[in-house]
């Protein structure tokens, strides 16, 4: 039924899996709040996995959404506590679009209440952005300044703004970045076409990550249910447990399908992750964020219910995945925000138009 770019990424996924298996054990994840996992980052960086989706011309590793998705999904299966997506398909993409060479080290993106003013021979950046992923650990921060119909991007070394630490539910860094008249004159600045490209891309990234984390949550839960015994037998033999396991499997499969559908759609627009791809296929991206967000909650709920009390202890690894699921569904727009946007787009098409749009999902379109 048509060739699918997702199928061609198995080798890349295997590479990522090998690296993560070696460098991203449970103890790395557990201690990440207090210690930046430098070794993990270096392992990912030296294999080029931190730069997939950015053109080789700008110092990236090449590849498009399908390749990036394979890596991000795999990293999420290990709860890798590093800004992999932020460095590659978010900050890296923006720099690529802006024709700026990628700097070294982890990168991130900031958007919020930021503004620029022209002062004599250049731009001055002020304002603040909340919930910036890993700002404290990044070498450079790509600032997104919304303007009327476009978006100004500026790459700023992370020692220029003030950074106030904050966290998400998974205790991943989501910092506040405060810019007090940062002079952009000697820094790379460019204008992007779409002011909302970052949000679509961010939503797609989190959808992909959620589908990866859900696969892992399902694995952990199936394994636990087959090992754990109660009332004299493995709990997987209880019908009530089987019912829940099947529901969990359904959520994981749906999340996977939703993310795959969006990745196929976006990848079909163009080979490289351009602004337009995520934007042209905004409906599929919205659908993916909505469906994976629903699955994130249901999946986390069922997994904890089946794990019982052990699942909420810090020692057990389940919560690393469930807390990420519950954080990621909030980031770059929750289900309600995206469902409302998707609904508006479709309502404008009417019933027949909606049906046409639904059944052409995934079809290749011109960029």
């Amino acid at each position, binding site marked *: *039924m*048509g060739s699918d770019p997702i199928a061609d990424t198995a080798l890349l996924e295997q590479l990522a899996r090998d690296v993560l298996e070696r460098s991203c054990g449970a103890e790395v994840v557990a201690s990440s709040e207090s210690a930046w996992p430098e070794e993990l980052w270096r392992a990912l960086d030296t294999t080029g996995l931190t730069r997939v989706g950015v053109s080789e011309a700008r110092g990236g590793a090449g590849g498009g959404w399908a390749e990036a998705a394979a890596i991000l999904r795999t990293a999420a299966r290990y709860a890798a506590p590093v800004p992999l997506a932020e460095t590659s398909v978010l900050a890296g993409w923006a720099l690529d679009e802006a024709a700026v060479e990628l700097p070294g080290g982890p990168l991130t993106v900031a958007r919020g209440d930021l503004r620029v003013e022209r002062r004599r021979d250049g731009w001055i950046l002020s304002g603040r952005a909340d919930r910036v992923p890993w700002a404290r650990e990044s070498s450079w921060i790509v600032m997104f300044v919304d303007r009327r119909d476009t978006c100004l991007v500026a790459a700023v070394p992370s020692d220029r703004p003030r950074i106030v630490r904050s966290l998400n539910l998974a205790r991943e860094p989501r910092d506040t970045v405060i810019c007090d008249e940062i002079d952009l004159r000697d820094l790379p600045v460019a204008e992007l076409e779409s002011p909302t490209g970052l949000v679509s891309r961010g939503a797609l990234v989190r959808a992909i990550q959620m589908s990866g984390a859900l696969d892992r949550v*399902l694995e952990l839960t*199936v394994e636990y249910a*087959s090992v754990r015994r109660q009332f004299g037998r493995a709990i*997987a033999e209880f*019908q009530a*447990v*089987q*019912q829940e*396991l*099947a*529901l969990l*499997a*359904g959520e994981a*499969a*749906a999340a996977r*399908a*939703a993310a*795959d*559908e969006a990745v196929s759609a976006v990848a079909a627009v163009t080979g490289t992750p351009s602004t337009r791809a995520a934007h042209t296929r905004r*409906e*599929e991206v*919205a*659908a*993916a964020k*909505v*469906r994976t967000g*629903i699955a994130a909650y249901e999946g986390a709920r069922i997994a904890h219910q089946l794990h019982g009390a052990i699942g909420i202890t810090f020692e057990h690894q389940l919560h690393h995945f469930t807390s990420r699921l519950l954080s990621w569904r909030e980031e770059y727009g929750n*289900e*309600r925000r*995206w*469902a*409302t*946007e*998707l*609904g*508006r787009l*479709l*309502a*404008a098409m*009417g*019933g*027949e138009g*909606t*049906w046409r749009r*639904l*059944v*052409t*999902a*995934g*079809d*290749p379109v011109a960029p």
Partner: protein
Amino acid sequence: MTLARAAPSTHELGALRAEVRAFLAEARAAGAFIPRCDSWISGHDPEFSRELGRRGWIGRSWPARYGGRDRDELERYAITEELLAAGAPVAAHWFAQRQTGPLLLRHGTEAQRRRFLPAIAGGDCYFAILMSEPNAGSDLASVRTSAEPVAGGWRVTGRKVWTSHAHKSHFGVLLCRTGPPGERRHEGLSQLILDLHAPGVTIRPIRLLSGESHFSEVTLDGAFVPDDMLVGSIGNGWSQVLSELAFERSGPERFLSTMPLILEFIDAAGPDCAPETAETIGLLAAQLWTMRRMSMEIARALAAGDAPAARAALVKDIGTRFEQWSVEAIRRVAGREPAPESADRISSLLAQAIAASPTVTLRGGTSEILRGVVARELASR
């Protein structure tokens, strides 16, 4: 079904869909049908089925020598989707196309294929699926209907329930006992093609709460089935049925049954709808998009000769829960009471959909049974 064909291009598929849509719009305008939910069960119209057959839209992926058109499975899928979304009356030929056709292509004799498949593809020959028995529910392995060997064939005795449209069909595929149950209870079952007009066959339609009668009870009192109406091999009925269930459970009818209501609702909403209405539409679409992909992945596997039973069960469980949810979601924001026979389209479609809602998680295996299938597969990974 395992033939590799070049997949149709997006352009070709689009043209086919456009053709089907144009036909449906015309038929609807001419009053040939009124769109309704669940039309693959409740919309029985032989004339409509024959028209589809004439156009080559039934059994389209089957070999041409059996009345098919040798087209890719994706074309059949696209036609099916268009018919369901439009709420067109496709029940007459539905079960024959969905289950009997693939069954005969996999397990039928050459004579059976030549006899039945062209008639099915022509929209002329309808099959009922005779599986469930009274007091057995989803426990298919407990089949008691028996086939006694006699000269030249079998005499079958027993009772089958919940057979869709048996009273309006020509033949039935009968799951019955031709030998003793083994230790796993699945042995000794076979599938026979039964002429529903044969002596010894009594069909009683079952009146449903909606007032309709699309199910029947079929009583077999020594009805004769000739030898050559055995499908596949003796005692192999259980495994044949299992692969049939994958076809039965994963199709788009497991999540598109309420599509006529959904599309009417979107139409009524319009571009300036309330945030709540927009959110509901978005939630509906996000799930539809996802299930479509899951269902199409299984269609692909089936076309390649696999029988992904657990994945099909999972799609049906998710899909039918979605159908129930979709009715509730629309009902919540629609702002009008469901009313059977109302002139307001949304009120009457809502009434239809609410009345059918309890059944969608029962037909084709209850949710509990489906989840058992999924859980067993998870455990064996």
